[in-house]
Structure formats: structure tokens, C-alpha cells
């Protein structure tokens, strides 16, 4: 028997997640904008190293939030309720759309590279921004629709 508070807690956190995901996507994409507008050739300055480390950390956290049930510090039962069948279906759809967007982005960058040679780091940033950003927006949109 599931106690009522677990269902209520899962419900409240699910709503929070649905609001949070698109916001996180916007922050993540904006962060890529900062990277491209303040590009530096070498990464010897501590501020640049910190910026890159921040981007990498945020990418990993967002990937984990997308591929796991998230809210890792909440009780197991609440997390199980939050990772219900509709959520798993929404996540699978979001990852599919994110993967497709990444592939379309990669094809676009491939053709762009004939006119403007791209650095590996730039390309990785762009592809990760597209893949993670699109998947987060899609997941958030599907979750909001399901509430």
C-alpha cells in the first residue's frame, strides 16, 4: 500500500520537474551563446578553464536528469512514482527527438565545414547544445501536457 504523502510528494515534484526542464534548457543554450561570443583560442586563463568545467558539469547533470528519474536525494518510493509509465514513454520520445535533432545538426555542420572550417571543440559544443536542449524542451513539453 502506498501512503498518500508519497503520491502527493511525487505529484508536486513532477509538476516542478515539468516547469524546471524547459528553464534548464534555456539556461543551457544561453550558456553556449556565452561560449561562442567570448571564444578564446587557448584555455590558459583560469576563468576560461572554470567556464569550460562549468559547461561540462552542467551537461553531465542535465544528461543524468534526462536519462534517470532525477531527484536523486528523494526517497526511493517517491522517485519510483515519478518515473511512472507515462514519464518513461515521454523520456524515450524526448531522447528520440534529441537524437534526431543532433543528427540533423551534424549533417548541417558537415556541409558548413566546406565553407568555414570548424574546430572540434566548437562542433562538440553545438551538437551537445542541440541534442540536450531539444531533448529537455521536448521532455518538459510532454510532461506539462501530461499533468
Amino acid at each position, binding site marked *: *500500500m*502506498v501512503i*498518500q504523502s508519497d*503520491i*502527493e510528494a*511525487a*505529484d508536486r515534484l*513532477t509538476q516542478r520537474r515539468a516547469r524546471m526542464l524547459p528553464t534548464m534548457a534555456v539556461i543551457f543554450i544561453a550558456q553556449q551563446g556565452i561560449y561562442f561570443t567570448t571564444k578564446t583560442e587557448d584555455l590558459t586563463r583560469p576563468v576560461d578553464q572554470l567556464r569550460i568545467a562549468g559547461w561540462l558539469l552542467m551537461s553531465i547533470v542535465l544528461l543524468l536528469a534526462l536519462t534517470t528519474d532525477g531527484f536523486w536525494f528523494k526517497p526511493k518510493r517517491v522517485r519510483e*512514482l*515519478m518515473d*511512472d*509509465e*507515462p*514519464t518513461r*514513454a515521454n523520456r524515450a520520445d524526448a531522447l528520440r527527438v534529441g537524437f534526431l535533432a543532433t543528427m540533423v545538426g551534424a549533417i548541417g555542420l558537415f556541409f558548413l565545414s566546406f565553407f568555414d572550417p570548424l574546430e572540434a571543440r566548437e562542433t562538440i559544443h553545438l551538437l551537445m547544445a542541440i541534442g540536450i536542449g531539444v531533448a529537455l524542451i521536448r521532455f518538459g513539453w510532454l510532461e506539462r*501536457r*501530461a*499533468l
Partner: protein
Amino acid sequence: MPERLSNRLLEHRTERGLTQAALAELVGVSRKTINTVENGVFVPSTVLALKLARALGEPVERIFSLEG
């Protein structure tokens, strides 16, 4: 023409005076699961459909049916 799964979950739930949260508690799922199934946003797995039917004390085919 594609077939669609229709359900009478809302009808059976309200007949028993259950809220979405109360039914969710009986089945052991989230309220969102009940809401999405009721509104036809999500097609439940066989396991979930059977659990819902058991919680409502009805045969599964009285709650879910194919349309079209």
C-alpha cells in the same frame, strides 16, 4: 484506419466515488498516470491496465476497448 484504445476509466472511477489520487493510491502509481490514461494521452501497458481493472473490480475489457 488505425485502431485506438478507448477507456471508461473516468466513469468507473467516479461511480465508486474515487478521486484520481485515491485510485492512484490503490493501484500504486502516480496521479499523473491515472490522469493521462483517463484522458487518452497515454496508452497503458497490459500490466497497468490489469492493475486498474483489478483495483476497480471490473474485467479489463469493460474498462478498455478498441475503437475503429
